[in-house]
């Protein structure tokens, strides 16, 4: 079976045909290359951090260097990988395909958002190679405005600039989903990935401007000596924390909501069943997006927040568990009596559900004010948010990348290697981060390069796990690249899945569909399996 004669990948080969493209699929691949680059930079910092923590003494790097390492790890991973990764790569590729459109509503804006992202990344890379930043990715004031002598301004500007690429992507998705759906594609006929993209886009457009003004205020405070957050000049450092977390807490949902959308798609396709409680799963995405904006105060339980504010933020934080649990239960119910096949995407989806559940349940510990006071700024927090961000976002992303890889590239990857690396990642991840829950509960604080000797066993376990995890991330790089040339040709619909993206060729033509599709039924209509009582 050959590849289709005309598709978006062979529509021009020159550098210009890529760098000036307006095709959402090519822009998705530009993003894929860029976020992978930043992922490995951020990962390199993590490697050095884990090497340092293999021994109790601070012997590999100085404390100042260590501060820069965890800062740049956080900045790179949060702003340049986790936030853009799924929307900008898979969202860009799939949103028009899934709704049956030729492209996003604003293709030029889409290309511009990639350039803006690269410009922001270059600013931050500049900060990195000319000395780095040591404020932590949270830029807490007044340290970041008054004390730190490192490259705060270029890093802040890099984040400011990159924020506009998030805003433009979110704006593009919202308009596209509202105005570009194919005939018959009603809201409740949309695949759940689109619902999660829509919810994510809402956070993009409502949250990102606030972080933009916040980092701008930081830069203004450093450049013009405005005293917005400096107590010596009447400013309030806690106000900075409010503004910062007003974006940065919802940002966690920017990272995990798209993964949830991917898991919904994968679970339906590999259980060959309609997603259980489709409307509930769809609305739970919106509920998470809305609730996510009302819980930022739980980052400030120990920062002098009033007791009453803390109580309210605590209750609201607990409420996030409801839509999250709705999703987990509904995926499980979808699998019940489904015809499950254990292909690689499904392994990642199962991994996601398990790790997200652990991350979510430990989040409840942190929403409880009393317990949070005990574990704030310890490794318990580190473990918790890595279960959500790495265990959640990256598992979902890799699952989605494998699921749609045949559509993106037209070819299949090596299934045995893919299953192996999914297993390695799962084991490596848990070995890295589970010991950190224990470490944190025992009282090991975050952001120190040395620690008491009794913590060494758990730290060595964690560092060993990180090395396994690193190998697990490298293997897909190799076999996915290999498959581009040597992989078996996949055909239009290798998984036998529903959804408009599987009705066109793999890779799709530049205009996506030869004629505008007409949608006549709900998503996930799979033929009934023999012997199953519906």
């Amino acid at each position: 079976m050959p590849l289709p004669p005309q598709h978006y990948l062979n529509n021009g080969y020159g550098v210009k045909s890529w760098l000036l493209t307006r095709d959402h699929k090519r822009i998705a691949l530009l993003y894929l290359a860029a976020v992978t680059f930043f992922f490995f930079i951020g990962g390199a910092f993590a490697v050095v951090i884990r090497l340092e923590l293999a021994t109790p003494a601070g012997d590999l790097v100085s404390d100042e260097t260590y501060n820069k390492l965890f800062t740049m790890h956080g900045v790179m991973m949060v702003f340049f990988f986790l936030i853009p990764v799924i929307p900008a790569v898979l969202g860009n590729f799939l949103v028009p395909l899934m709704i049956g459109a030729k492209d996003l509503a604003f293709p030029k804006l889409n290309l511009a958002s990639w350039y803006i992202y690269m410009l922001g990344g270059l600013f931050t890379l500049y900060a990195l190679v000319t000395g780095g930043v040591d404020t932590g990715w949270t830029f807490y004031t007044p340290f970041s405005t008054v004390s730190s002598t490192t490259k705060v301004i270029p890093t802040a500007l890099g984040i400011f600039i990159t924020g506009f690429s998030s805003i433009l992507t979110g704006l593009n998705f919202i308009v596209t989903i509202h105005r570009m759906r194919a005939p018959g594609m009603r809201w409740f006929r949309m695949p759940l990935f689109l619902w999660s993209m829509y919810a994510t886009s809402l956070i993009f457009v409502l949250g990102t401007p606030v972080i933009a003004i916040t980092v701008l205020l930081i830069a203004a405070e450093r450049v013009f000596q405005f005293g917005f957050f400096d107590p010596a000049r009447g400013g309030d450092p806690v106000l900075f924390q409010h503004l910062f977390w007003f974006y940065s807490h919802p940002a966690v949902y920017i990272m995990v909501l798209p993964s949830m959308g991917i898991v919904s798609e994968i679970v339906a396709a590999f259980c060959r069943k309609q997603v259980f409680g489709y409307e509930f799963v769809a609305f739970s995405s919106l509920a998470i997006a809305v609730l996510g904006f009302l819980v930022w105060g739980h980052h400030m339980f120990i920062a002098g927040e009033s007791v009453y504010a803390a109580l309210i933020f605590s209750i609201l934080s607990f409420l996030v568990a409801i839509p999250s649990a709705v999703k987990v239960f509904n995926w499980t119910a979808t699998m019940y009596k489904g015809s499950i096949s254990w292909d690689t995407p499904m392994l990642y989806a199962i991994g996601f559900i398990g790790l997200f559940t652990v991350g979510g349940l430990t989040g409840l510990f942190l929403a409880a004010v009393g317990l949070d006071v005990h574990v704030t700024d310890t490794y318990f927090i580190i473990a918790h948010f890595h279960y959500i961000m790495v265990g959640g976002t990256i598992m979902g992303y890799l699952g989605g990348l494998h699921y749609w890889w045949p559509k993106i590239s037209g070819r299949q990857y090596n299934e045995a290697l893919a299953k192996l690396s999914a297993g390695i990642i799962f084991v490596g991840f848990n070995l890295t981060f589970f010991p950190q829950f224990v470490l944190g509960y025992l009282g090991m604080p975050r952001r120190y390069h040395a620690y008491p000797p009794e913590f060494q066993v758990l730290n060595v376990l964690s560092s060993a796990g990180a090395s396994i995890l690193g190998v697990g991330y490298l293997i897909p790089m190799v076999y996915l690249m290999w498959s581009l040339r040597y992989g078996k040709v996949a055909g239009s619909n290798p998984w036998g899945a529903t959804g408009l993206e599987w009705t066109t060729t793999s890779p799709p033509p530049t205009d996506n569909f030869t004629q505008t599709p007409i949608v006549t039924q709900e998503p996930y209509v799979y033929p009934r399996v023999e012997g199953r009582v519906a």
Partner: protein
Amino acid sequence: MPELAHHHPALAHQFENLAQQKEASTLGMWVFLVTEILFFGGLFATYCVYRHWYADAFTAASRELIVWAGTTNTAVLITSSLTMALAVRAAQTGERRLLMTLLAATMALGCVFLGIKAFEYYSEYIVHHVPGPGFQFEAEHYRHAQLFFSLYFMMTGLHAIHMIIGLAVMAVMWWLSYRGIITAEYYNPVEVSGLYWHFVDIVWIFLFPLLYLIGRHAH
């Protein structure tokens, strides 16, 4: 009609027809304005907190602003919103000369605003009201008045940057009208730019009382 719309030169390939294109760009601008509200919202929240805490210092500092300049600028901007609204109307009815005149009037008023603003900044620089080591104010309110002026320059400065962007957008609209690309059938760029222009005006409508008028009632 759909057949005709299909071949309109301004129709981008991803859209089915001009109506869909118009709806998409209008919605896009509204979503963008929402992000702008949140962007300025962070500043307004910061202002409200400090205004609440340091009411006396803010009142004293507010009295130092040049009220007649701020008032004149408010009138200038509201007038520019009128000429903008009329420009959109002229675009709808396809009156090209009128459209170009009204866009030019809007730009002229925008420039007057920025000129007066520059005069104010200069006056404040002369009397050492720019925050930093050279800042001068009565000792009692020194620290918090500086905070007021930090907010004043940040808020009006960002507003002025939005005005400059608006002027650039208007210049492009004028050029599109001059080239005859804006027609009664395809006037959407003017309408969407108008939304942005009105938004920037509305931000000023909030800034003016917050910054200039809070000290007026207590003499």
